[in-house]
């Protein structure tokens, strides 16, 4: 039994909007074990990025956490931690890789200085030592001529190189948990393959845990050992990666998997999920997916499903788990 490095209990993030209270993340609980890679998948607006930001106590202005929400990282309660201690964790023991390195990097600092800054803020390293560590890390993430490159500014680097710099910043202090929010979404597929290979290699060597947030089920299949599927602010299914792809229990997960175009297909029609995602100000009553679900019956409108146990470490938020005879073929 491994000890979880991260435990999230009943995470709720809401925003007051003109249209009413938007419950963008609405009761999310999960854990991540040391060294484990967990994929968090879902479509735009499902709350996955907000969940990720919340783990570092970073949320956009106007957002509020519920009083009952807790995020425990290595025994520390992230929501009650004094700011100084929070800063000591962020970027050091828990760090983040953002999707768009061009906006996440500082345009007026050289990339070497930006990586060195992380070292200087969190350790007693001298400027020279920090620069040395930065260059070593830039080399480790596969940047050729790292000494030269360290003196360049973000705009002088290609998208793939910038993402390597982001990874170097996030990993230079060997964190125990890295949150990677769509780390390869902005990259071309051949560059994505390089970056995923790099992340896998560094993860295996450093033994860190990774929370990988993505909309790309192919990336999840390659990287994660366990997957959380989010829909409308909630986790609707969690399962080991094989179980999720081979025997999904939630109709939303099934629909998502069926809608993904694959390479070796015989040009059949793609399966679609009818309708669109509901608005976070007006989640449907009962099951939030029922309006788009082919199996929905009256119980789905009357009673909100909880995460029912499907198999070992496999749970789904769907009444079909309890009443499989309701499934329509």
């Amino acid at each position, binding site marked *: 039994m491994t000890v979880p490095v991260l435990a999230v209990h009943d995470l709720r993030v809401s925003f007051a909007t003109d249209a009413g209270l938007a419950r963008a993340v609405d009761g999310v609980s999960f854990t991540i074990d040391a060294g484990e890679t967990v994929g968090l998948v879902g479509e735009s607006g499902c709350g996955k990025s907000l969940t990720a930001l919340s783990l570092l106590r970073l949320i956009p202005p106007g957002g509020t956490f519920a009083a009952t929400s807790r995020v425990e990282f290595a025994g520390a309660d992230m929501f009650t931690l004094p700011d100084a201690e929070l800063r000591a964790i962020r970027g050091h023991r828990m760090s983040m890789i953002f999707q768009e390195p061009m906006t996440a990097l500082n345009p007026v600092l050289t990339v070497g200085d930006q990586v060195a800054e992380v070292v200087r803020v969190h350790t007693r390293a001298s400027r020279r030592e920090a620069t040395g560590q930065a260059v070593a890390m830039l080399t480790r993430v596969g940047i050729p001529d790292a000494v030269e490159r360290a003196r360049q500014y973000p705009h002088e680097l290609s998208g793939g190189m910038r993402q390597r710099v982001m990874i170097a910043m996030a990993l230079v202090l060997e964190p125990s948990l890295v949150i990677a929010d769509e780390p390869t979404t902005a990259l071309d597929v*051949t560059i994505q393959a390089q970056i995923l290979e790099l992340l896998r290699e560094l993860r295996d060597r450093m033994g860190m845990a990774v929370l990988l947030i993505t909309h790309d089920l192919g990336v999840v299949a390659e990287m994660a050992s366990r997957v959380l599927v989010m829909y409308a602010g909630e986790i609707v299914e969690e399962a080991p990666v094989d179980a999720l792809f081979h025997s999904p229990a939630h109709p939303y997960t099934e629909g*998502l998997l069926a809608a993904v175009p694959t390479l070796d297909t015989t040009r059949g029609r793609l399966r679609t999920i009818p309708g669109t995602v509901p608005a976070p100000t007006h989640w449907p009553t009962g099951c939030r997916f029922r309006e788009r679900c082919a199996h929905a019956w009256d119980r789905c409108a009357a009673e909100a499903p909880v995460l029912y146990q499907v198999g070992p470490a496999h749970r789904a938020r769907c009444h079909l788990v309890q009443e499989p005879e309701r499934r329509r073929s």
Partner: protein
Amino acid sequence: MSALLEVRDLTKHFPVRRGWFRGAAQQVRAVDGVSFDVHAGETLALVGESGCGKTTTGRSILRLIEPTSGTVRFDNTDVLGLRGESLRRLRRHMQIVFQDPFGSLNPRLTIGAAIREGLIVHDLARGAEADTRVARLLDEVGLRAEYASRYPHEFSGGQRQRVGIARALAVEPKFIVCDEPVSALDVSVQAQVVNLLRDLQRDRGLAYLFIAHDLAVVSHMADRVAVMYLGRIVELAPRTALFATPLMPYTQALLSAVPVPEPGRVRNRILLAGDPPSPANPPSGCVFHPRCSHPAKDRECSSRVPVFEEKTAAHWVACHKVPVTMTPSSTSIPS
């Protein structure tokens, strides 16, 4: 039979200046001698990574960008020779659907007005007749007719893309350039739009030039696929041949890099080293040679530009190391 669209040796060079005072403009060869045909009712996919020139190719064909040289013939009309009114008339038959429908729809026009505009400009319908046509178009792309009075910001990404498609269809074109039409969409919505495009093609006999970087989407859409790298087409083949037996090392690497949603599947991934070179300073010989891992790579690859030729039936490749396994045909252009 001649093709609906014939593109021959199309080039587009953009001048760039290096430094503030030193003159001597450099050229970025965004598109560097591209030739292909698109037949009526067919989908030709143009795939490649950022900066390979696929979008510039699509826009040059429609003259949204003026190409530097080459010829484009559409329905036996010389597109590049047209001016003014005759160019405008031709555009009725050649339309485009953009990647970002929000950026391409006027935020201050209702979507009904946006779709109507083409009808009016090309004198196809006006008044109540135009309203009926707009309602019918909205229905055809899966939107409710009363949406005509709404503004673009009231729609989701998938709905806006449907509006963009309705706008393109309004003038009853024969040919549509689809420039990354589903790249910005979530997977469940993407599937809806891919199916819609295919239904419209079947019902209306449309030809598409389908520009995309997502090879999985292309494998669902295309009849033939052209792969671009650094401004050139390096491989062109029928869909099944391209995906089952890619011949050019770049295409092989590209296909092997696509993540597949099957956990635990062992794949022989060809990892390309480094980034694509700059189109301002393309490598000598075969533009792909610095990143190529073909075991037979040699000096010929870095010194001589490979001929784009038919290696097996209907399968065109620009590579010195792929042998020709058919009797040479008379054409020098894939069609």
